């Protein structure tokens, strides 16, 4: 068996750092979270650097099960970067809640290694391992405040529903294996593309089941019900990480998988497209309309994250390079603005229950002008108002969808964007246009300030560099 060591470096390094060195350090070093923090931060930086280095080195290895370079490298860098920013935000938060244990960072890096595997997967089983690695890490992180009943409830709920989704995932994979005779992406593609499967019905059911399982992971209608509860109950920094990097990872898998299941030549493609378009349309409407009725900031952002899954699905519906690079752009901008918004929430809240109501944000602009400003940037960006990053991503998605003939879907997206503007603006109204009735202590963001600075700057200037970012996609694809 030939193994492409150079190309696999990012994956090898993160697993060695995690499984061999990390465990050893934790076994011998006690009560030094600072060291662990620094160690894992360094791991992520190194992994991202290696991913950049190997990005031009495209190919497959491990018997063709893992794809290297290009597309996967882009997502590797994104995951590591988001992971790093999440760590910066998590440290002050966990210290404040007296829950800063070494294991947090271990689980976070473990989740990232799972995400990377999802992006690198070229085989359904590898994809399965990646998804499970990520998900199990998430279950543990969701329950990280183990004395807080909401956190524990979130973890349990997430675990049970996640297990359900895993059932769909494996069943779908089994059906596809039965219908095509392979778990390898390129083998499946050749069968699907030639419409040569002896069991087209099984293939279709398998594809739908995979869509269902991934819809769970991206929180798309009608499998989004877990998201608001889990996002609300989990520690805010965990929510920030799950709802951004987790969604980006699920979309990297979605893209790779549905590029295989929906080739242009397949007879199944138009039907799958229509199904996904319907899911996308309902997801954005449900997400945005439900978000309007929320009074809790975390739940509001959770529903907004559901709605964004709907927007992103437009790119899958459009399929082809235009759709996929639109997803890559939008998911990048989305991770930054959503992460930033949750980090602001995390800085302001206390004990995972206080200061989480939208009404608690009254007069924030006077008390904490900087926090209010960055939150306003994130809200405008999430609402897709130019010149912020979210607008450019939406524009690319709209172009892809209209070009694919889905004008009606774009109009649904436009209508739901107007609805979404209402609740994003609602938060700004609270922060800027109303005065606070109660006294609040000043907050200090600490290390999370770094996260906010980076996410804000990216949200503001990403649009200016749209061309450069798109050219990265096209050259890395």
């Amino acid at each position: 068996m030939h193994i492409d060591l150079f190309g696999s470096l990012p994956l090898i390094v993160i697993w060695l750092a995690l499984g061999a060195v990390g465990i050893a350090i934790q076994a011998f070093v006690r009560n030094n979270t600072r060291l662990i923090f620094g160690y894992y931060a360094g791991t992520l930086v190194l992994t991202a650097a290696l991913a950049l280095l190997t990005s031009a080195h495209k190919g497959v290895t491990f018997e063709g099960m893992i794809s290297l370079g290009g597309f996967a490298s882009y997502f590797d860098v994104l995951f590591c970067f988001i992971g790093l920013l999440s760590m910066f935000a998590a440290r002050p938060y966990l210290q404040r809640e007296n829950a800063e244990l070494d294991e947090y960072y271990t689980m976070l890096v473990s989740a990232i290694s799972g995400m990377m595997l999802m992006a690198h997967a070229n085989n359904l089983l590898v994809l399965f391992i990646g998804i499970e690695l990520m998900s199990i890490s998430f279950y543990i992180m969701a329950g990280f405040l183990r004395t807080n009943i909401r956190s524990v409830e979130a973890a349990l709920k997430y675990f049970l529903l996640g297990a359900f989704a895993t059932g769909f995932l494996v069943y779908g994979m089994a059906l596809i294996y039965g219908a095509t005779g392979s778990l390898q992406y390129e083998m499946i593609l050749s069968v699907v593309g030639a419409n040569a499967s002896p069991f087209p019905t099984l293939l279709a059911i398998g594809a739908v089941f995979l869509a269902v399982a991934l819809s769970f992971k991206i929180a798309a209608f009608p499998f989004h019900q877990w998201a608001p509860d889990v996002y609300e109950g989990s520690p805010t920094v965990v929510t920030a990480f799950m709802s951004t990097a987790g969604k980006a990872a699920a979309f990297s898998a979605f893209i790779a998988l549905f590029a295989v299941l929906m080739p242009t030549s397949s007879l199944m493609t138009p039907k799958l497209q229509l199904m996904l378009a319907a899911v996308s349309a309902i997801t954005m409407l449900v997400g945005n309309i439900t978000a309007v009725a929320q009074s809790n900031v975390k739940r509001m952002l959770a529903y907004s994250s559901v709605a964004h899954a709907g927007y992103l699905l437009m790119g899958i519906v459009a399929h082809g390079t235009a759709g996929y690079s639109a997803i890559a752009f939008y998911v990048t901008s989305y991770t930054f603005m959503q992460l930033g918004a949750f980090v602001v929430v995390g800085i302001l809240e206390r004990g995972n229950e206080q200061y989480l109501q939208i009404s608690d944000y009254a007069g924030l602009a006077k008390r904490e002008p900087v926090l209010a400003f960055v939150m306003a940037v994130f809200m405008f960006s999430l609402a897709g108002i130019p010149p912020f990053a979210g607008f450019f991503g939406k524009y690319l998605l709209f172009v892809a969808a209209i070009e694919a003939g889905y004008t009606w879907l774009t109009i649904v997206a436009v209508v739901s964007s107007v609805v979404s503007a209402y609740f994003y603006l609602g938060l700004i109204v609270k922060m800027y246009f109303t005065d606070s009735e109660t006294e609040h202590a000043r907050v200090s963001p600490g290390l999370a300030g770094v996260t906010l600075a980076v996410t804000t700057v990216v949200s503001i200037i990403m649009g200016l560099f749209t061309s450069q970012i798109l050219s990265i996609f096209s050259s890395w694809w």
Partner: protein
Amino acid sequence: MGVVALLATLFVPLVGSVVLLFIDREQVKAIKVTALVVTVGTFLASLFLYPAFDASLSSMQFVIDMPWIASLDAGFRIGLDGTSLLMVLLSTLIMPIAILTSLGPIKKSVKEYYVLMLLLQFGMIGVFMALDTFLFYVFWELILIPMYFIIGIWGGKDRIYAAIKFFLYTLAGSLLMLVAIIWLGLAAKAAGIGFTADLMKLRMIGPTIPMDVQKWLFLAFGLSFFIKVPLFPLHTWLPDAHVQAPTAGSVILAAVLLKLGTYGLIRFNLELFPQASAEFAGVISVLAVVGIIYGALVAMVQTDIKKLVAYSSVSHLGFVVLGIFSLTVEGVQGAVIQMVNHGISTGMLFLCVGVLYERRHTREISEYGGITSVMPRFAVLFAIAMFSSVGLPGLNGFVGEFLTLLGAFRSPFLGSWTYAVIAATGVIFAAVYLLWMYQRVMFGTNDNSENKHLHDLTKNEYWQLVPLAVLIIWIGVAPRTLMTLSEQSVRAVVSKVELYKFGPHAH
């Protein structure tokens, strides 16, 4: 020189707002002076455009074309024709006046206020200069954010409701425009020149789009502009926003932001979709005429001066839309000059309301009466603004209204003089509600004890009102000085529409 002046006019406000960010918030005076210097500087820069502009050309001048998003052919493309030059000059003129009128009343979050004002100016000028649909959209939406905060933070009692309503109305319209912008780009791709946002290329593609699609694109662009104008029955955001906004906000809203809509109609709807424009001219003109009468009647029964002026805008903008969709040279020329006129005279009316409000903190007409006896100088300037808005011959309003009505009367597209006749009654109504308001506020006996000792205009207020009064008389007497600027561009648009409607031998 023109290109330099163009870039300076666009970017000086942006640079100014960044400079303001670095001034300590306690240095209130420095902030105000900087804002004033920046806006006056922008105005002076824009004046250099005037001599550099060649009015004998209908094409875009001072064009700058730089790539931005290569794969979508969206670029930083700006330039001016006669119509946009007039709009740019109007915006740069109004801004220093809006800053002057803010110096006193704006007391909280002074720094943020002026930063937003300058950002607003950047967005407005950008909209008038953009020659790229994508860039246009970015500037168009960029205006929303500062205006939303200006109404929401520094506005009146119901400011939050007004701010959200303003934002959502505009956003709803503009997002459909975004879909149409993408559609147009793809139409260009289908026509073999690749996906593009370049307005100059799209102008050639637009008329080749089949009518059934063109109608939808026209409506998608149109909806967003009609909301902004606002055309009846999409006007309901306007009275709320106008009344709740601080004086400077109302002035900018009336003078410039409403013009974004009418400007968009000329720049996009007429130029890109000539066949659809001809097709819809009748329906839209009916709505415009309804707006003229409706706005005037509603204005007549208002008890709040600011609301009265706000509804008068609905009526006045009806003339502009009627002129545009008469699709004649007279009508569109009249509309363009009326856009400038309305900016000056309604802007000035809002300033006058602000003058009264600053002294009494009420806008109820019944609270006033006999103000002329204590504020005689103010009475003169208020009267000039009021007569200009009425459309008194010799002042600017007359020129524009006359031309729009003439255009509507002779329009081969409308094919009936009834539009013009009914619309003309709006002029009479305007005289009724404005003169009656003026009479109740300024004449009669000054029997309200609180009104007995109002002081006349301050030096600052003279600086705001006198330049506008001069312009009102100047345009009224010598309208050609401005109308020659836009004449060729207007002729080009109209002949394009005529070409597609009547073929090459219409004349």
